[in-house]
């Protein structure tokens, strides 16, 4: 029914042909007949358009009129280049920041995983809120219990992370992180090989041959994607394995590893502790929902069976630990660490967008006052309210469209920056790319802004024409101020937030940790290469010999070994362990106290700078076969024996891990507290054991008063002389370890400060713009004031105080809004805190100063108004 473009053309052509034919029949010559027919027909495009419009009337008219208005708008904006440029740039910043952050949010939180039917994949974990442990993992007996009771999960996959010393790929022995998995793991995860095969049921169990699958990242970055690796035999610690395949690129979870091997490659996984000890938790558990089972149903069944299991083994689950089972879709579990930070960033970007829009609204409002005359003339000529709004909409569409284009261009590099940043929290951010969502977000925001801005200016009243001169009505003035205050308020929220992050960071970076930060150099020297067991004489000899020879190096004044690099190894020893001490009986209902379990060699405390408070240090005589001894931290001694003496009491660990008859150990010393789990120093109940009685250490501590890093080659060489296969890795001073651990905090502060900086910049421009406009519109008023005897400095003070007043009102609004926002955020995210007084005061001071500076130029202009010119100008 509705004719298309070709039909319209055909109809017109048919008409003309008939008309020409008629004229020729009347005797005209063909050429003049053609011209006459055309002349008689009328202006073809116009008639064609009017036919077209019958069918497409309303939208056609509206779009055409808008297009017309946009052309006019573009022309009139080109006359106001400075204002247009400011608007476009401001909007581009707002839109670009939002589009980029949204891309990353989408890529990290929402994008599906590559795994087959990834929405059926779940991650199961135990948490112990009572111990402050988010993810306690599982022991093998626990997994067996759960697997045997649950039917809603089609299959379970288990994964535990270990470190191997690998020899075979590449020349040097190196430490690799590896996943050790059962036969069902890859099938449950729904992953495919890019080369060779993955591990399957035949690779499971203690009798299978050692087999390993390389991760894609390791294969491409360390082995240059060499297809010849398939079939090679590698040494993993004491065992060997054949490389059977390369895994497709996928999100590594729970840990980034170089390879994934079967159980037989890890002697530990075949040992009694792993297989039978319920408290030996080091395994992550994945599941694939059985067909037709909902997540909620599976969660309910898992929770019920877990509760039943805990009832069956009450000795392994203390009431105060409050162990709970959590079931989450794998995708959410992977994204969880980045969720808070990304949502906070998204909110910050939203605030920047509000600021940008307020600022642009101000500029447009000011401009509309200047063109009130033009609008009044249009209204007088018969333009209705709708037509006038359309004019304004067309102009703001031009501005916002340009802003969106620039914003999307800005977003491209920005996505890279934000993704690199988010990668600290979730590996998924590494492969976030710029996609069309940036365009959609940009276009959507631009449209929203355009519509908003079109409704900001007041339309001229019918009386508007009475006076063609530039006037600011009280209403417009109020709006200008409200927008300026909005900017200040939003900037305040961002500044206070950034200030809070900075304050936390500074506090962490300068906190006294109890360690000698600058002069202690740490190394990882894992011993698994030798294949020695716990307490093996070979390992002890190796420690003894390397400590002795490194101590002889020039520039070294202390060497020791231990099992735990502060902060870097946080979490690797699991949660604190319950123990008992003779002479201390927990009150009725109270549970046994818990302490961190640490292993150190003699002289460790002296090397890292922890003072001995009582008793003695470990000595070479504290070896296996002699009396078991421990050293406790000050808070252990004070908590258990506030009045008495902790020395020479006997303690023993009560965790089932240590068996049913744990050895009593005598307390021989007390050292100062040092919190090696958290950089922010907390109370640290720690109990240290001598390495010679437990046999494992794996970390080397060197005290060097000079430049510690200069010693790295000599230390490495010395160790390799003793044991050629020994890896020596990750040398760093404690200070750098702390910096490394704090780098996510530093990045948070940095990115948030960036936002706050942008916000501050826009707000300053906004306040300055409002005042400048208000001054230029009141030239006459200032002229009169000067004429009747006002001192110029009074005018200066007047304008300045206007700016400061706007800032003060904005800060008050920002403080109120920010307080409410923080309250809401605290309820949603556990990690959000109310900023202290310092960041709030700092933000206030910065904004006040900025407002004063922004007001200076307009104020100076007000005080320099030329009286005669001002009075004559109108």
């Amino acid at each position: 029914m509705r004719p298309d473009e070709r039909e319209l053309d055909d109809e017109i052509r048919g008409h003309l042909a008939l008309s020409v034919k008629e004229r020729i029949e009347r005797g005209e010559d063909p050429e003049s007949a053609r011209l006459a027919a055309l002349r008689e027909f009328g202006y073809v495009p116009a008639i064609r358009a009017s036919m077209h419009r019958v069918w497409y009337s309303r939208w056609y008219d509206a779009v055409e009129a808008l297009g017309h208005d946009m052309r006019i708008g573009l022309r009139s904006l080109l006359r106001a280049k400075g204002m247009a440029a400011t608007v476009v740039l401001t909007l581009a910043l707002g839109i670009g920041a939002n589009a980029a952050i949204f891309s990353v949010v989408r890529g990290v939180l929402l994008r599906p995983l590559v795994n087959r039917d990834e929405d059926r994949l779940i991650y199961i974990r135990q948490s112990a809120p009572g111990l402050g442990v988010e993810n306690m993992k599982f022991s093998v007996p626990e997994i067996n219990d759960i697997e045997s009771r649950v039917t809603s999960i089609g299959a379970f996959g288990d994964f535990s992370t270990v470190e191997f010393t690998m020899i075979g790929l590449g020349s040097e022995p190196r430490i690799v992180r590896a996943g050790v998995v059962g036969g069902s793991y890859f099938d449950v995860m729904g992953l495919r090989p890019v080369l060779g095969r993955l591990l399957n049921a035949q690779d499971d169990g203690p009798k299978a041959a050692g087999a390993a699958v390389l991760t894609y990242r390791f294969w491409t970055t360390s082995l240059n994607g060499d297809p010849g690796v398939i079939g090679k035999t590698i040494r993993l610690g004491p065992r060997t394995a054949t490389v059977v395949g390369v895994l497709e690129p996928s999100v590594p979870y729970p840990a980034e590893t170089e390879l994934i091997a079967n159980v037989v490659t890890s002697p530990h996984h075949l040992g009694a502790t792993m297989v039978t000890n319920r408290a030996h938790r080091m395994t992550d558990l994945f599941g694939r929902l059985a067909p037709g089972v909902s997540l909620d149903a599976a969660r309910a069944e898992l929770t019920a069976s877990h509760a039943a299991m805990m009832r069956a083994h009450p000795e392994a689950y203390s009431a105060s630990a409050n162990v709970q089972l959590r079931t989450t879709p794998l995708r959410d579990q992977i994204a969880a660490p980045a969720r808070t930070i990304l949502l906070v960033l998204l909110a910050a970007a939203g605030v920047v967008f509000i600021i940008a829009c307020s600022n642009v609204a101000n500029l447009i409002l000011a401009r509309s006052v200047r063109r009130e005359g033009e609008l009044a003339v249009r209204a007088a000529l018969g333009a209705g309210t709708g037509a006038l709004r359309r004019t304004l909409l067309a102009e703001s569409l031009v501005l916002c469209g340009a802003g969106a284009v620039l914003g999307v261009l800005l977003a491209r590099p920005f996505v890279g920056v934000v993704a690199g940043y988010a990668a600290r929290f979730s590996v998924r951010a590494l492969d976030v790319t710029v996609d069309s969502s940036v365009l959609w977000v940009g276009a959507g925001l631009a449209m929203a802004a355009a519509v908003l801005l079109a409704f900001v200016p007041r339309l001229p009243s019918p009386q508007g024409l009475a006076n063609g001169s530039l006037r600011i009505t009280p209403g417009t003035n109020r709006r200008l101020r409200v927008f300026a205050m909005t900017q200040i308020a939003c900037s305040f929220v961002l500044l206070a937030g950034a200030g809070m992050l900075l304050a936390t960071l500074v506090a962490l970076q300068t906190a006294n940790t109890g360690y000698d930060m600058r002069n202690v150099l740490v190394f990882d020297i894992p011993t698994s290469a030798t294949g020695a067991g716990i307490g093996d004489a070979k390992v002890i000899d190796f420690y003894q010999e390397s400590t002795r020879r490194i101590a002889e190096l020039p520039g070294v004044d202390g060497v020791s070994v231990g099992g735990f690099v502060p902060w870097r190894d946080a979490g690797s020893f699991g949660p604190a362990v319950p123990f008992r001490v003779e002479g201390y009986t927990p009150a009725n209902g109270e549970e046994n106290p818990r302490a961190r379990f640490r292993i150190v060699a003699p002289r460790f405390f002296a090397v890292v700078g922890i003072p001995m408070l009582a008793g003695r240090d470990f000595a070479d005589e504290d070896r296996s076969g002699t009396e078991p001894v421990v050293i406790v931290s000050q808070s252990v001694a004070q908590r258990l024996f506030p009045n008495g003496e902790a020395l020479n009491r006997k303690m023993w660990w009560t965790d089932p891990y240590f068996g049913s008859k744990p050895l009593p150990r005598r307390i021989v010393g007390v050292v100062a507290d040092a919190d090696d789990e958290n950089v922010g120093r907390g109370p640290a109940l720690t109990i240290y054991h001598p390495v010679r009685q437990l046999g494992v250490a794996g970390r080397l501590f060197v005290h060097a008063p000079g430049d510690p890093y200069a010693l790295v080659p000599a230390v490495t060489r010395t160790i390799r002389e003793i044991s050629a296969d020994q890896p020596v890795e990750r040398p760093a001073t404690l200070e750098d370890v702390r910096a490394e651990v704090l780098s996510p905090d530093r990045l948070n502060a940095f990115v948030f400060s960036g936002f706050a900086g942008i916000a501050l910049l826009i707000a300053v421009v906004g306040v300055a713009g409002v005042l400048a406009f208000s001054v230029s519109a009141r030239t006459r008023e200032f002229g009169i004031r000067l004429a009747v005897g006002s001192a110029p400095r009074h005018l200066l003070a007047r304008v300045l105080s206007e700016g400061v007043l706007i800032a003060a009102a904005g800060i008050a609004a920002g403080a109120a809004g920010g307080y409410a926002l923080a309250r809401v955020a605290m309820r949603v995210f556990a990690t959000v805190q109310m900023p202290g007084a310092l960041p709030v005061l700092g933000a206030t001071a910065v904004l006040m100063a900025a407002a004063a500076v922004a007001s200076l130029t307009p104020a100076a202009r007000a005080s320099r108004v030329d009286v005669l010119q001002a009075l004559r100008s109108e």
Partner: protein
Amino acid sequence: MAKPPDEGRLELLQGTLDMLVLRTLQWGPRHGHGIGQAIQAQSDDLLKVETGSLYPALHRLMKRGWLKAQWGISEANQRAKYYQLTATGKAQLLREQDRWSQLVHAIGRIMNPAARPGESGE
């Protein structure tokens, strides 16, 4: 677009074009050019319909469902669109004719009171 002044030609009254078009199509389908010609001829050249009014009117009537169209081959051996009354179009023509005669009657009474029928009452 200089047009020769059309001496003695009448301006079409607002709103009458639709009626004239419907009326012209009473005796069968015609193309746009033919409709214009017919109106001109039947009014003894007193009325001339501008194509700029005629074609939008044709499309408007079609959109309302009073006309339907079919493509055919014209005398000039060109594709041409032939318009034709629909059933509702015929009804509409009757309505418009009715309204028109009422209007003529009413205007006649105002413009020519002497000829008013039934003036005996005065």
